[in-house]
């Protein structure tokens, strides 16, 4: 997840820089823009690293615990029986790095159980396990 975000930021920030370099033909400005992009990407790298360290989940006996957040700390507990469906999503960069995001949905829109940056195999395992547990413990609305 960290690397994915780093690469994305670098791309997004460096591209206009490169374009500017070509358009203006001003090598000094172009170099400055690229340097800024690298600095920006490094900042994102460290922030993402902290975010990544803060993100954690625990599969407990009856519920899933998800912890996240650097500035704002969040801890959610979602009982397996409350699960309505599980999503596994992977964007192009995620796919390239072999990662996926698992998102567990309940009937409440505010529920917040999302685990990004899991290796594809682990994401698939978690999805199947959540689905099985959800079915076994399903509670009505």
């Amino acid at each position, binding site marked *: 997840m960290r690397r994915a975000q780093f690469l994305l930021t670098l791309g997004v920030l460096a591209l206009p820089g490169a374009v500017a370099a070509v358009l203006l033909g001003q090598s000094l400005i172009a170099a400055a823009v690229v340097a800024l992009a690298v600095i920006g990407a490094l900042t994102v790298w460290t922030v993402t690293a902290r975010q990544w360290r803060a993100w954690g989940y625990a599969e407990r006996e*009856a*519920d899933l615990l998800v912890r996240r957040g650097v*500035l*704002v*700390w*969040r*801890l*959610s*507990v*979602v*009982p397996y*029986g*409350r699960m309505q469906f599980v999503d596994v999503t992977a964007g192009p960069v995620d796919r390239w790095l072999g990662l996926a995001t698992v998102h567990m949905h*309940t*009937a*409440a*829109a*505010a*529920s*917040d*159980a999302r685990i990004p940056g899991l290796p594809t195999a682990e994401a698939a395992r978690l999805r199947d396990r959540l689905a099985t547990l959800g079915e076994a413990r399903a*509670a*009505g*609305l």
Partner: protein
Amino acid sequence: MTLPTTSPVTAPDGLVWERLHPLTPLLRGYRVIGVLAVGLTQESVRSMPARVAAYLLLGAIPLAALYGFLSWRFTRFTIAESNLRLETGVLFRRSRRVPLERLQAVDIVRPLFARALGLAELRLEVVGGGRTEAPLTYLGEDRAAAVRARLLALAAGVAADAPPPPELVLVQVPGGVLAAAIALGGPAITGGLLVLGLGVLAVVRPEALLPVGISLFPLLLGTGGFAVRRFLTEYGFTVADSPDGLRLRHGLLETRAQTIPRGRVQAIRVVEPLLWRRFGWVRVEVDVAGYPGRHTGQEAQSATSALLPVAPKGLATAVLGHVLAGVDLARLPTAPPPRRARWRAPLLFPHLGVAWDDRHAVTTFGRLRRVTDVVPNEKVQSLRLVQGPWQRRLRLATLHLDTAGRDVHARAAHRDAAEAEALFERGVLLTRAARAAESASRAALRA
């Protein structure tokens, strides 16, 4: 009057299919006429020679009538094996199956024109989908009530041919009290102040009245419209108890009778606006899963989340105890957050609180408009503990209780961090026990 038959027909598949009321196409035709009327005002039509337009119109009416008849002819429904099945569509057939054990609420809606013809629309609310699925538009009034009784009986697992259960009226809200309460509510007061301000402006600087008035017009329309709509919707509000659920009747022009089966209440909200407090009035709102969002524009005019638009506090407490068995707000004192929470929420602070026993969680907030949210433990979907940077400094945290409804958002705001964590742990255990108990009682009911 001779009308095509609506008596049930036994199809080759052995199911007894029923049809909607034969006047349905006529009533739905109003919409077609509306569309035509809008079309006629268009520039492209107006520039047409009058004869062509007349021919078009003359051609459209029989076509619309034919389509209306065909769509009525091709619509049929049946209740079989605890499912409602509805088939519609002339060209594209659509067959829909609604499992009745998922039923959240049943409404009988009667728009003005339908009332004149003695017709009603039956709406079933199930979870999922942004709008009301499978509305039966229209049925005769008696038949709508009979079908509702059958659906509710099946949903509750009772024999479908049991006689319709009797109703016991709990509360009736007088129209005068409702009007007074709305007039003392936030939107009406805002609108009144605006009008007053404009009046003063008209005297002091008449030349400024027009531009200011025009710029404030949308706001005026919004506040006034809100008050009027609320009055029309909640006029004649009656709360009745029936063995198949709670029945709410309301509406002046378009009337609606909601039935909320037992155990389908996701959360309750008690609201006390500032100016109501000296009269001891409160408004009670109920959250049921499955109703389309208020802002999606899919909901009919008469929709409201009110359980009691206005009532004396004592009466509201009694009704509340009836709806959520065992809730007694007076006997559940909410604990305030630590004093240092004032630094985080100086205005909100005096009315923050939480109480959580083995059946319900109660949280309070709001200053001008005091709000008390009640969530039964078995309806909590998930718990969230959130701590912002400011809160971390002050060692505070907020615990959110996520529910399946759309209006109530219960939260124990700005608690002591350690207390919030303990509350979180306790909440996990309490809700788990409540879920297990409910599953067990449901299984016992099925057996």
